[in-house]
């Protein structure tokens, strides 16, 4: 087998030193490594192709179109929950101690910052009295928690909590009624029918 011409030529070029010298520093006239040259040109070819985007095979349909398509597919796969709570089902949860205890934990993490740890109210209204701004039945409380009161800074927790967590935390809030908080906020809203 004979050595390819290319190889011989490269061997001849290898480590040929250039005549100049700067403060004693010299330079070889070595050819650039093949793989480097290939990488250099390939990235350029890729970039031109990607930017020109023939038949949407480069950059694609654009970030907004992609986002819209993603949202449509996602909404179809995950229909929004009904937003309503079933009163009978919720009252059944209230009766189950372990679930109320779970609800208490969620309350401590998400609600206590505004409604106080004991439900006495602070940034948000008092949850221990009989007065309710957005309805005092258990299903209307569920609706308030689920949809939030965005104008007043109450988030829509239905987007953040799972269905069972929603039920647990609403059940816990229901049990707060009639308790005696340390620093109760003055009653707001309409007194609920007993």
């Amino acid at each position, binding site marked *: 087998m004979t050595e390819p011409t290319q190889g011989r030529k490269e061997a001849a070029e290898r480590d040929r*030193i*250039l005549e*100049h*010298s*700067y*403060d*004693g*520093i*010299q*330079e*070889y*006239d*070595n*050819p*650039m*490594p093949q793989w*480097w040259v290939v*990488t*250099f040109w390939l*990235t*350029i070819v*890729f*970039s*031109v192709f*990607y*930017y020109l985007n023939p038949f949407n095979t480069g*950059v694609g349909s*654009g*970030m*907004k179109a*992609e*986002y819209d398509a*993603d*949202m449509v597919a*996602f909404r179809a*796969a*995950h229909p929004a929950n009904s937003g309503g709570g079933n009163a009978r089902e919720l009252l059944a949860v209230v009766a189950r101690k372990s679930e109320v205890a779970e609800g208490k934990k969620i309350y401590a*993490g*998400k609600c206590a*910052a*505004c409604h106080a740890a004991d439900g006495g109210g*602070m*940034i*948000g209204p008092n949850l221990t009295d009989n007065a309710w701004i957005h309805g005092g039945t258990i299903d209307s409380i569920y609706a308030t928690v689920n949809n939030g009161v*965005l*104008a*007043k*800074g109450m*988030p829509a927790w239905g*987007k*953040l*909590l*799972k*269905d069972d967590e929603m039920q647990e935390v609403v059940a816990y809030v229901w049990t707060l009624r009639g308790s005696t908080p340390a620093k109760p*906020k003055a009653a707001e809203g309409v007194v609920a029918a007993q």
Partner: protein
Amino acid sequence: MTVAAVAAHPSAVTPLDAFSYDDDIVRKFMVACVAWGAIGMLIGVLIALQLANPAFNLGLEYTSFGRLRPLHTNAVIFAFGGNAFFTGCYYSTQRLLKARMYSDALSKIHFWGWQLIILAAALTLPLGFTQAKEYAELEWPIDIAITVIWVVFAVNFIGTLIKRRERHLYVALWFYLASIITVALLHIFNNLAIPAGLFKSYSIYAGVQDAFMQWWYGHNAVAFFLTTPFLGLMYYFMPKAAEGPVFSYRLSILHFWSLVFMYIWAGPHHLHYTSLPEWASTLGMVFSVMLWAPSWGGMINGLLTLRGSWHKVVNDPVLKFFVIGITAYGMSTFEGPMLSIKSVNGLAHYSDWIIAHVHTGALGWNGFITFGMIYWLLPRLFQAPLYSKKLAELHFWIGTFGIILYVVAIYSAGVTQGLMWRAFDETGRLMYPDFIETVVRLLPMYWVRVVGGSLYVVGVFMLAWNIFMTWRARPAVYTEQMVFAAPLAKRWSEPVIPKPTGEGLIGWVRAMRYHRKWEAMPVLFSVMVTIAVAIASLFEIIPTFLIKSNVPTIASVKPYTPLELYGRDVYIKEGCFNCHSQQIRPLRYETERYGEYSKPGESVYDHPFLWGSKRNGPDLAREGGKYPNLWHVTHFNNPRDIVTGSLMPAYPHFAKTPIPWADIQTRVGVMAMLGVPYGNAVTNAVSMAKKQAQDVATDIEKNGGPVGLQDMEIVAIVAYVQRLGQDIKLANAAPPVAARATTTPAVAQSARRMLP
């Protein structure tokens, strides 16, 4: 040695000039480099501690994360990196050109001027004077000083080029030249602003355009302050330390020009998925991808210069530092193009991944090249043997170990958080809807970073000790080595360069010998570099500014009220943008978490833009109206009262610091000068602001909050935060009913109605 080399030169028949090199200035820059480096890195350790435990904010407004983070970045980039560049540049330029610096006086002005600028930064940043642009935080008087000192440096450098005794410019000098020219352009055009006080100004650009200019600057600060200067240093000190020729002259030509031309386009990759027009961010991405090979050209030329000398690495700490430094350069310049790919960027942007990427480059490349260079210089500058080679070896190992701990921990943190942000459960809800869940998960990694970073700083103190002890062994008087070299002849023509035989045109192009002629013409060379960087800049800047459709306006977006504008200035002063973005990307997990994605028309009055680049806390683009005023008052006073585990510093001083009412009129006036339609507010900003402040304070009081806040900064920043993202809601919905008068969004709206 130099004398002998000159004597052998054919031109030795002409009379030789006798001169000496100015090494005193090199010693000065070197000491400044290490001193500022140690300070900047210690501040880095402090802010790393703050992210692990907010108690390290020390309860002072001056030492909170938002104010110290810019101090850390400015100190390590411009004080450590800058002085390192000047150290190596002043040493090598004189020797490569066989000429003393053009003017010793200019050298001294450059040195002292630069150190004073750093001192000014160290004082003003903790005081909260900032332009809110990353790595360009310094306020306008300091910016002017930087410009002047940079021009002094440029004149000194170019003057030395003119009186050089070496006909051709070596590759290191090409890199220095490109750095000097481009940094000047970047600095001037990004910092254009109108002053609104001694240490307060507003960027002349707003929103999308300001973001574009900032990242054109920001990315190229990395390119022309941390990459090209250090490549220049590598090209001088690597072959010196390895005592062997550079691997490939042709490679240095191709990678130099492609690097200089391509880098400048890449900035918009910092703005993927933002309101920046997509054509620009796509351009930023493809040019970043194309930068991979040019960057690696430098790595190859550095590492392959060691061919046949690898055995020396075992015994030489200098070469060890260079090998790891160049390897880190290779790693981060592979990672950079990868991060610029949109889908990768979607995961990494706003996360710690970027911080890890930056520190591979900064600790590995900039740090280790600097340390290697200093160890090589020490015996030469102090004319005494290095105090302890063992200590230098130890510095190398402890530094390397520190880098590994740092980057492994922070890469893990970044990827963890990025994945948590985008995780959905089977019901289609965000798996981690509370932002804080994605923060507390990172704490162990943050502690590892503290350890890694501290080890690295310990290494720097070892270096400082080595410098000190070597300096102590210096001679009573430094010997000034006389150098003899012939001046350049006035008339001269480049010898005809023989074409490589039998290879035709392609061979001639490939051999690149024609480039040699340009190396003897520094003026032409500078012009070519300027053209290369200017073309790229103009190709992106002109359309961004001129095409109206790039920023579709939204009719309901109105200027901030005077009080909100002041609140925004408080937000800027505290550096809130260091941890909170205001830019929601059109990605499902972003809009589910934060709300509708950000539109270009929303930030048309944002001088400067405050989109942010990192989320240590959640995005705030839709924060307005999300919580009641009292929530914010309580939260600012101590975030942990509301969010358990929050890392945010407490801002109790907001409720105690009075609003300087008189300043508000000036600031509104400057905004109006910049074209913000302020209408009536131009004359009665103060009374408008006072009225809105009273409304906010009354609302806080009515809900059981603290009393008498109407003159305090807290109402201004609350008013600002409550305004964020409100205007676009008006574009989407019918005007809200008046019954909401007690809520803050309504307060903001009523105040806004006073505007035209």
